[in-house]
């Protein structure tokens, strides 16, 4: 993973210990704990809409963590995409289908232990990758911002342009897939309606 850290050359390497944390580090840990708490409430609360709103808190906490890591651009994109669009879409879906005020005892899934396993595995993988990639590198907070829009754009479109393009193709495929799925349903329904109207339906 040295490619990832190479463009971030001015990372201060040594001279930090865990026993003398700076204010930013303390804030980072506190916000992290709050985010983790909000995420836990999101998956354990019995109230559907509350879960979506706690998700807002968790995603917002992650945006604050990005800010503390000086990745300003990523932080605002996180707010724009996740808080502004994904959560609104989620709430829209909830309100359209089922959004009772109060508890929904039937909202528990039988798959929750499997889900816990998958989530734990994914979390462990991510933690391992990040720890292995960065180990003891520290961000130099006094120098020029290392997560500014310019730096992020240069890294994204010079070092990581292939994954970026692959992801965009994946998203395009998902988009087309969604269109195809929704169109096929309506066509089948229309055929059924036509068959019912002409009285030639098989049943």
């Amino acid at each position, binding site marked *: 993973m040295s490619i990832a850290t190479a463009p971030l050359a001015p990372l201060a390497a040594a001279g930090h210990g865990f026993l003398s944390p700076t204010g930013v580090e303390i804030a980072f840990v506190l916000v992290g704990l709050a985010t983790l708490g909000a995420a836990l409430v999101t998956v354990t609360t019995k109230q559907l*809409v*509350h879960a979506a*709103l706690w998700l807002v808190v968790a995603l917002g906490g992650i945006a604050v963590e990005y800010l503390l890591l000086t990745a*300003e651009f990523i932080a605002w994109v996180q*707010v*724009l995409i996740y808080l*502004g669009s994904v959560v*609104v879409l989620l709430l829209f879906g909830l309100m*359209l289908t089922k959004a009772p*005020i109060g508890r929904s005892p039937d909202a528990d899934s039988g798959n929750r232990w499997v889900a816990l396993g998958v989530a734990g595995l994914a979390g462990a993988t991510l933690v391992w990758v990040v720890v292995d990639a960065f180990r003891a590198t520290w961000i130099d907070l006094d120098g020029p911002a290392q997560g500014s829009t310019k730096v992020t754009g240069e890294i994204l479109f010079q070092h990581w342009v292939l994954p970026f393009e692959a992801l965009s193709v994946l998203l395009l495929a998902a988009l087309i897939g969604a269109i195809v799925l929704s169109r096929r349903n309506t066509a089948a329904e229309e055929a059924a309606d036509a068959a019912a109207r002409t009285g030639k339906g098989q049943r």
Partner: protein
Amino acid sequence: MNDVLDVALRLIVVFAVFLVLPLVVGQTEHKVMAHMQGRLGPMYAGGFHGWAQLVADGVKFAQKEDIVPANADRRIFQIAPAVALLPYLLVLLAIPIGPGEGAVGQVIDAGLFFALAVMGIGVLGSLMGGWASANKFSLLGGLRTAAQLLAYELPMLLAAASVAMAAGTVSLPGIVGAFEWWWLPWQIIGALVFFTAGLAELQRPPFDMPVADSEIIFGAYTEYTGLRFALFLLAEYAGIVVLCALTTVLFLGGWHGPFGGDGLGWVWTLLKVAVLAFVVIWLRVSYPRLREDQLQKLAWTVLIPLALAQIALTGIVKVAIQ
């Protein structure tokens, strides 16, 4: 200690602007609508042409009892107005009204993204209020708000991206700094798309389907009374100020004007904001409300293709002049 003083001073100034400008827009709306409709409007409060009407309204709202419906989700019902209002205060911090460091609350590297991202949060307040009221009309209003936001967020972002491409930066002072007069015809489609989508995001007429009074009473705000209701109204007017200021900064050249040096830049900004706010009021008086299907159709079949065409045009011109 000087830094702390500087920050405190900036925050106080931005907060004062946040409190004053929306009220000015609101009072202007009273009078402009009255004159356009051939009536007087509020004339008594304060003596001269009813200038104190909004102050009187504020006193009235503060006196009213703050009611939470029995079946409502109390906590969410109560924090929803704050969620609706605060984002606009944060956006105002990032908007430059003149050249130099002194004329902006806080220089933010990705200011354009900051402004659009935080503006999107405000809508969560309407959704929360609409759901937590335990009222069918409120829920319908919340649903319509969400559908409208999903449809109009995309053209707004695309139009803003066009300006960012033209300027080569996403910092708001940077964009105004790079502005040339010929950007106006170059970016005019993007400007119209941005302003229209912004109106829809604020739920201003003719895009006020989420609060359509003849169908769903007052949408997500139906159950609100007193100060919380006033906060929602204030959020709407603060939203007008923010939208007009953003349009000014992105498309109309902010502090650039045909005459007057750097010292008068802030006058130009305020003048452009005022003209745009007048247009917002004007549209309210002159256009009927769009139906829900018309709203969606306008966004997906007109605004998004136009915004994409603007991006293509921006790219072509940008490559050609380099």
